[in-house]
């Protein structure tokens, strides 16, 4: 049930819910005493319910009483601290570059750290102290030995112990690096001018070569001159290192790991706390200010208004004034929040990739999700392939999906596509290009391509008609009768007329034929009246839109025949003695994985295109203002469920 209540140019009476529309919004204005502002903002960040509006755009509505707040100067301080944290995380080895397979399939190493807001606040207050201590420790125990570590790694192949790298009474040893192009020259110069000196060169790094120079103490000065003239830089080996290089390297690694463990929690918590704090201070500049109070204005989903009000009152000791009202702004200013169920939520990112629905527009995600999975399944219908895709999606969910929400959503889409492909493969009797002959339950796309062609055209008609119906619904709810009647209904009548002509075959001027002509002429008149003569050109575009669904059949058959051809090749190779069967199996495996991978990209792009062009083009304009609530960005932490619960910051 829904009630028509909204007008075309502005949105009123938002208490009425319209099915399939984005979540209804309420406008919330709050006046707070200055001492409570940051706490309220911090709490709202954790609730993800408040879309803050810049007060500078709204001052006339506040009778120009509050004034705008300039950007806070301390934001720079917190940003610099964040940079120091990131540098420390890198130095301590927490930031690792991952290859594409690792990015997709490697699970998150550690679960998020549970923190409390009070604990975070306390750590932020000590941030300078914590950072200074960590930086000093890292400098003394890690950075200082970084070059030594690289040197020891390089000289491993020289089979020299660390103890032998120190000078003694009878032998002078120098350790360091020289420019790579000077190494040979120095070696020759030492040999010719000082016959008793030897240079051992190890691996190069960034145009310098690590070297060990041995000489008698008596010629030390001459050796020093030659080395100095050729850009030698000394690397001092710390006295506490001894034994083979591997042992020293192990000592240095253990030291690094110990320091990393010491600061890991604090730095991760500080990282997220600083990100959140910086965002909060930037949000402050969107508020207005009087002598003793702050004013803020924003949007809250209707279902969360009570929670938002409670949060504001609780964190301001009940002294805030909160005003809630329905939206009375132009549609373009009201933010759009999609609110689909768990099964469809992953597809919201694909809808928004095209554009955010306007506040008074239908959310196409439910239909998008269903048809997208269907189309991809049809294009890549194969029982074995579908199972492999679903498995890949499950591994992605465990890997990248454990790290970010976006990857989690993408993994769920891949799993649903895999399932769809497997089911449709079973129904059409496809299993690895016919290697295992399965009976087709509905239609065999390979045996009956024309039947499949007709089926996808019918599917295309259904999809386009659905788009027109959604367009009609949108115009009806917005009381845009003109576009409803002379646009959506006219096109639907024209399609009905075309369908009746095709089904009945009656083109005469009596009986059914007359009805068909009546429908067609009525629709053409409506189109001309509403959209002008140019709308007649859109008739060919409509035909083109429907024919475009032929690509489903084309891509399905292309994949099926590619698999069959490789299977044919494999069968030819399998006949060869001894190596035939294994080679055939390898060929089949690699070619099949290649076909699945390419097919995923192709079917994804074309399913997307069918929706964005043929479907969305009938009803969806986008251009909405995306709901972007105050939020806390947390990479390493999560706020404990109960205040005061969870781990305390150390």
């Amino acid at each position, binding site marked *: 049930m829904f009630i028509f209540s909204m007008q075309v140019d502005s949105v009123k009476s938002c208490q009425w819910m319209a099915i399939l529309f984005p979540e209804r919004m309420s406008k919330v204005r709050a006046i707070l005493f200055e001492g409570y502002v940051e706490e309220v903002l911090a709490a709202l960040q954790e609730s993800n319910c408040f879309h803050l509006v810049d007060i500078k755009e709204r001052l006339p509505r506040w009778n120009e009483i509050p004034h705008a707040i300039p950007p806070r100067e301390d934001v720079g301080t917190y940003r610099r601290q964040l940079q120091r944290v990131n540098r420390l995380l890198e130095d301590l080895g927490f930031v690792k570059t991952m290859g594409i397979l690792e990015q997709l399939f490697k699970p998150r190493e550690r679960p998020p750290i549970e923190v409390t807001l009070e604990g975070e606040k306390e750590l932020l207050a000590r941030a300078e102290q914590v950072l200074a201590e960590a930086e000093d420790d890292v400098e003394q125990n890690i950075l200082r030995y970084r070059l030594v570590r690289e040197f020891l790694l390089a000289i491993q192949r020289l089979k020299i112990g660390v103890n032998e790298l120190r000078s003694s009474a009878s032998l002078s040893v120098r350790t360091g690096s020289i420019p790579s192009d000077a190494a040979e020259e120095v070696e020759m110069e030492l040999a010719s001018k000082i016959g008793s000196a030897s240079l051992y060169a190890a691996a190069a790094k960034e145009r310098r070569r690590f070297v060990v120079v041995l000489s008698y103490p008596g010629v030390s000065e001459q050796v020093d001159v030659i080395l100095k003239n050729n850009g030698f830089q000394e690397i001092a080996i710390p006295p506490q290192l001894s034994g083979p290089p591997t042992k020293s390297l192990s000592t240095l690694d253990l030291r690094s790991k110990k320091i990393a463990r010491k600061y890991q929690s604090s730095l991760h918590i500080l990282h997220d706390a600083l990100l959140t704090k910086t965002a909060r201070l930037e949000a402050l500049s969107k508020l207005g200010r009087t002598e003793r109070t702050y004013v803020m204005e924003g949007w809250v989903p209707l279902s969360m208004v009570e929670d938002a009000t409670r949060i504001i009152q609780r964190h301001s000791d009940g002294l805030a004034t909160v005003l809630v009202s329905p939206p009375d702004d132009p549609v373009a200013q009201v933010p759009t929040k999609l609110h689909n169920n768990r099964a469809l939520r992953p597809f919201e990112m694909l809808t928004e990739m095209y554009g955010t629905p306007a506040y008074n527009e239908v959310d196409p995600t439910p239909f998008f999700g269903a048809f997208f999975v269907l189309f991809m399944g049809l294009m890549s219908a194969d029982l074995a392939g579908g199972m492999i895709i679903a498995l890949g999606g499950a591994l992605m969910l465990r890997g990248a999906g454990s790290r970010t929400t976006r990857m989690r959503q993408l993994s769920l889409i891949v799993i649903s596509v895999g399932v769809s492909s497997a089911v449709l493969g079973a129904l059409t009797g496809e299993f690895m290009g016919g290697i295992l002959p399965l009976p087709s339950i509905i239609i065999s796309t390979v045996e009956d391509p*024309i039947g499949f062609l007709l089926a996808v055209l019918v599917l295309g008609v259904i999809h386009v008609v659905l788009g027109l119906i959604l367009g009609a619904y949108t115009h009806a709810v917005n009381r845009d009768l003109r576009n409803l009647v002379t646009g959506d209904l006219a096109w639907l009548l024209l399609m009905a007329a075309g369908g009746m002509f095709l089904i009945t075959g009656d083109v005469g001027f009596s009986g059914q034929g007359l009805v068909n002509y009546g429908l067609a002429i009525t629709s053409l008149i409506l189109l001309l009246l509403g959209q002008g003569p140019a709308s007649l050109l859109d008739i060919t575009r409509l035909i*083109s839109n429907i024919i475009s669904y032929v690509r489903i059949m*084309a891509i399905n058959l292309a994949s099926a025949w*590619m698999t069959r051809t490789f299977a044919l*090749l494999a069968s030819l190779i399998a006949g060869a003695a001894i190596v035939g069967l294994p080679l055939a199996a390898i060929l089949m495996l690699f070619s099949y994985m290649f076909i699945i991978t390419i097919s995923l990209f192709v079917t*994804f*792009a074309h399913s997307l295109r069918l929706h*964005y062009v043929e479907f969305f*083009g009938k009803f969806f304009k986008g251009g909405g203002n995306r709901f972007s609530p105050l939020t806390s960005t947390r990479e390493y932490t999560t706020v404990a469920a109960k205040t005061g619960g969870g781990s305390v910051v150390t």
Partner: protein
Amino acid sequence: MSSPEILVMTIGGAGLAIGLAGIGASIGQRMAASASTMLMAERPERFGLSLILTVLVETSAIYGLLVSIIVLVGLGGVSSSDQAMGALSAGLCVGVAGFCTGVGEGVAASASVGAVAEREAIFGKSLVLTVLPETGAIYGLLIAVLILRASGFLGTPPTHAEGAGIASLYASLVVSTTSVTSYLQGRVGASAISSASKREEVFGRNLIFVVLLESVSIYGLLISILILSYTGLL
């Protein structure tokens, strides 16, 4: 043993399939690979993404290879000029379509590599715009496969419809000529990618401009299918 003319046409078809499609894919891949090598100097960590974009361009050559193999494997069973003409038509169809697609996809892929160099997050949208021109090669492969099936190359008995060879040739010419839109789509796609990398919210609208060009190849596919259907080849 088949007559020399039949052999020439059949083997010619196999050659055209891989030759033309391969040249197109090579030209396209050269563009994408050159852009990728330049990217490595600035952003070596984007190797995986640029590799995906570069490899995608090769698919039209694979379609050509497949048709070539199908024709050569079935060479022994060719006994009529209609079958030979079918092989030649299939090779022409997938070869020309593959050529246009390879070059078009290469233009789009090199623009995508450039966009990814600026911003990694644009990869998904760039990928979609890069793959769109592949429709031409897919249509070419489809018509080639249908022609080969009717000519007895895929384990099915050859059709004995009158004028089957000429019908195959005309069906193939229709799809071949309309596949030029794939190259043009690639050019428009490249502009769309550059535009979307500056303003991501215009991706959807840019997509519409890219696919506008595809109407012609869709009409070509439909006419080819109708030719094959009405001449008894389908």
